[in-house]
């Protein structure tokens, strides 16, 4: 699907149901204005997020991916975010070597009560992605355009 040309970039969010999705709700209830680029995929827990979902989005054409879960110690499932933290932190090491700007992916923790923090996270991440501009798409063709002249 196309983004709003010239207005929006494609930003995908993976949010845990209990904390961050609730935080985004709280931000909405508080009418905290946010950029419109982000599309949220709701998952039960940040531990459910396979780092490959992030990669699928980035390789598939997302300009930015944001993951947000419960703060450490606050996981609804006790431990999911601890695993997520390690996996996502490790994943950051893969992006530059693939030629993807590592700033296109961030993860953070937002609780259900932190509407303002959510607004801040979304706004600053969206600004960050706009500053980077649209991501170069990986070609889907079998043979890429030849390097050089």
């Amino acid at each position, binding site marked *: 699907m196309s983004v709003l040309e010239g207005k929006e970039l494609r930003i995908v969010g993976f949010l845990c149901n209990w904390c961050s999705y609730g935080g985004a709700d709280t931000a909405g209830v508080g009418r905290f204005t946010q950029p419109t680029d982000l599309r949220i995929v709701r998952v039960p827990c940040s531990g459910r997020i396979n*780092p*490959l979902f992030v*990669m*699928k989005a980035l*390789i*598939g054409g997302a300009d930015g991916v944001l993951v947000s879960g419960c703060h*450490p*110690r606050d996981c609804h499932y006790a*431990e999911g975010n*601890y*695993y997520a*933290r*390690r*996996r996502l*932190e*490790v*994943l*950051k*090491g*893969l992006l*530059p*070597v*693939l*030629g*993807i*700007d590592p700033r296109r992916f*961030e993860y*953070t*923790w937002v609780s259900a009560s932190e509407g303002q*923090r959510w607004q*801040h*996270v979304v706004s*600053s991440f969206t600004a960050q992605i706009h500053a980077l501009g649209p991501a*170069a798409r*990986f*070609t*889907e*063709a*079998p*043979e*890429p355009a030849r*390097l050089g002249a």
Partner: protein
Amino acid sequence: MSIQDELKSAITAALPDVSCVVGWGAGPEPLRAAPLFIRGEADLEGFSAGFLSVNNPALYLPSLKGSKVGVVVKGCDARSVGQLAAETLIKREEVHVIGYPCRGVIDVDKVAAKLAGACETGEVAALREDGDDVLLNTPKGEVRLAKKDITADKCGRCAFPNAGNADVFVGERCAPVVTEDGYADIADFEARGLDELKAFWEQEMSRCIRCYACRNACPLCVCRDQCVAMSREPHWLSQGDGVRDKLFFQIIHAVHLSGRCTGCGECERACPLGIPVLKLKRALSRRVEKLFGYKAGGGDTPPLLTFLVEEPTIKERDWK
């Protein structure tokens, strides 16, 4: 006794207790050995270990689970054994590990580069080792090459030349080439810049024929017949020939190996099209090592299967 002979006696000694011993024997051409399954003393004749012992015999261990087997290993192969055991993919007590000091193995592609213009590696009629050199019989006459110029890249950064976890170790332990893998190759590679790297992978992956030799040569690919590369449930990849899907498989492989890859390099060596797929895994290994001080193969729990409540090395963005 030569190391060769010592290894043979170690294998002979082990044979009564194991269903087979995996080592190396003669291959289809002079530059290449083949994995050898020694089931009786008669099979020992073709056995040799040394400069051509490229294949990682640990690859075969999970499929041999359930009976006691022996395996002759280089230092790097032993790391694979260690990691398999740490993940309970093999039972360590079911494996009789015979180690020997490894001083590096051949990289046939490097020989090809040395012979470029003269002949192809497939035209080499014989190989003879002569101290630090090898002598090759080619249609253009005998060619002398220094081993160090045709040794695999991984051997140049080898910190574990002696199988640390061997049940039997043969020969004098040799000094590691380096004490720490500095991952300088990855740093240099990254320094090329994002645009160039993206184009690099598009170009390289366009050669990929989706044969999955990289995966099947990987001793730590646990999924075996159930790999998500071809499954529809879950359906991660299309079966098309597009660069994006082919690259994505390499990402899957690398992510699945993060915190597990011992850097044996078999994926990259196995690739018939010479795509440098190890780079992705090494980029993740570097990060895992930096974050968790973890070197796969040492026998500890893989870092992504555990956690600390306070992660002293993870500096999270504070969004201030």
